[in-house]
């Protein structure tokens, strides 16, 4: 074996690496816990754990200063698996250790997978309302809607991340190109009449020319959200149709006609449609008698199946979510007496922690029993 490879192997199978990585992760968790005061849970997860490197901002520059959760977790995984492959031998006496380590590997892989693919949405329903989509809590989309058909809307939804990168969108459903000109991840809007000194707007169509935009610092606070604003130019075959302003701050609907069709342009929370729909039948907010203390929140919903015929009634309450079609609906919040807010989570690996923890526990019990039996056998012998 090549000397370099041998060194790499020695590094990856070493227990020293395990100890270093565990120490690094202790510091990471401690630092992240302290930083949670400033950033809130979600941003801390993104900055420290769902990242390969932790960056620190100095002035306008960002420097990587510490390994992030993915790097430490990934290396731990490599370390664990390499040591396993290199050192361990398959024998009945070691089967408990095998099972424990397999559980640990599964736990690490499951966390990486859920970090990469988990999606969180929200569904806000008034009593009697039916929806077949949930909305993203943090990301937005620019929806360009062909509203010509009296029965249907044809929607082209451009994710905010593409607008942020300034990617030009040419979609077969649109008779024009969408060219993002300027994007602010967080902003405030004012009517131009209220902000006489504001610089001229890029927008030439819709409400844009009447609005002054002030870019704001991106917020990570848990109780605040960002309000992105984008200027997009629509370019048809014969040249520009004009530039529109779209903002996550709800504005009056912006409508225009082009190529014999009626269009609407709106920036809204990113939507996630399902082939079935959910109707809120009743929202209940129970309190302990004679007090204002909340006892229970529950949403009685009707699940309207994709076949359009069958329905199912479900009561969603704390610790009793609805799991259907890969999504989990939790009772998250409410708004007034008749509006529920459900958290909708897609996490294909939600079962992994349960399976891996069971495997670890079972492995430890087996290993302990093997030793116990051997020890007891030895003692019995004179």
């Amino acid at each position, binding site marked *: 074996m090549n000397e370099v490879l041998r060194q790499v192997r020695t590094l990856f199978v070493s227990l020293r690496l395990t100890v270093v990585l565990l120490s690094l992760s202790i510091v990471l968790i401690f630092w992240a816990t302290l930083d949670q005061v400033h950033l809130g849970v979600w941003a801390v997860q993104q900055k420290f754990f769902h990242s390969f490197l932790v960056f620190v901002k100095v002035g306008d520059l960002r420097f990587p200063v510490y390994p992030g959760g993915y790097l430490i977790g990934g290396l731990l995984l490599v370390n664990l698996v390499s040591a396993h492959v290199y050192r361990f031998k398959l024998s009945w006496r070691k089967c408990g250790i095998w099972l424990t380590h397999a559980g640990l590997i599964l736990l690490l892989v499951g966390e990486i997978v859920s970090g990469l693919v988990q999606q969180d949405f*929200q569904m806000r329903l008034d009593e009697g309302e039916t929806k077949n989509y949930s909305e993203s809590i943090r990301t937005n989309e620019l929806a360009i809607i062909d509203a010509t058909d009296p029965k*249907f809307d044809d929607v082209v939804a451009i994710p905010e991340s593409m607008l942020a990168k300034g990617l030009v969108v040419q979609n077969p459903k649109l008779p024009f190109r969408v060219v993002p000109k300027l994007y602010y991840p967080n902003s*405030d*809007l004012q009517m131009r009449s*209220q902000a006489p000194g504001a610089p001229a707007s890029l927008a030439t169509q819709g409400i844009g020319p009447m609005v002054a935009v002030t870019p704001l610092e991106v917020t990570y606070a848990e109780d605040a959200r960002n309000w992105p604003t984008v200027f997009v130019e629509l370019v048809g075959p014969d040249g520009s149709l004009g530039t529109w302003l779209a903002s996550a701050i709800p504005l009056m609907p912006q409508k225009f006609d082009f190529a014999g069709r009626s269009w609407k342009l709106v920036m809204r*929370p990113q939507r996630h449609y399902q082939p079935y729909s959910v109707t809120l039948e009743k929202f209940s907010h129970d309190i302990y008698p004679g007090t204002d203390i909340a006892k229970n929140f529950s949403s009685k919903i009707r699940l309207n199946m994709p076949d359009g015929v069958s329905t199912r009634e479900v009561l969603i309450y704390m610790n009793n979510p609805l799991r259907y079609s890969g999504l989990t609906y939790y009772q998250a919040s409410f*708004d007034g007496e008749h509006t529920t807010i459900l958290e909708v989570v897609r996490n294909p690996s939600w079962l992994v922690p349960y399976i891996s923890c069971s495997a670890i526990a079972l492995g430890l019990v087996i290993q302990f029993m093997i030793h116990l039996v051997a020890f007891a056998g030895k003692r019995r012998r004179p």
Partner: protein
Amino acid sequence: MSSRLFIAGLAAATLLLAGCGEEKVATYRVPKEKDPELPMAAAADSGAQGPPPTGPSMADTSVPTATGADLTWEAPPAWQRKPASAMRKATYAVGVAGGESELSITAFAGDTGGEFANVNRWRGQVGLAPLRPEDLEGAVHRLQGNGLAFTIVELVPEGDPNAKSILGAIVPFEGSTWFFKLTGPASAVEGAKPAFIEFLHTVKAP
């Protein structure tokens, strides 16, 4: 050898997973939706104080909740002022013999879709059919006072004293539109009507 193979496999899997995050333009057809006209106005109307889209940053967001000069008013001492919310200029609990109703005061930049759309939005909230444009004049009362033009809308379904009712006034002021909206059971709204009209006379520019 096996550890080398494994590391190569792991690197490939990581790359594959990292590739999953790429977002794409989505196209789809959905049954026609009601126009989300003035979601902020609707949210304020319904007393939304909760999570998104009513983030705290909305408190200083000037497009939906109009900034600029505020109208002033004098509420009767019997009306109980409720805690402020980001979406409202003020909220009062209005109690009369017929029951309790709530007065919400909101303001939004622009004409918020126009008087006709707003009257129909309120009609929808109390379960009344929308008006035709030519019927609008017959369904509202106009009132002038303190240099302001009030459009008063009385939406009290007949027959049921508990039916949800609205007595509202729409006031354009310096490029924004103010809404004074009394909501409650029919008997409470009816009972509070004289005081509400009296109150509108106290509304004036600063």
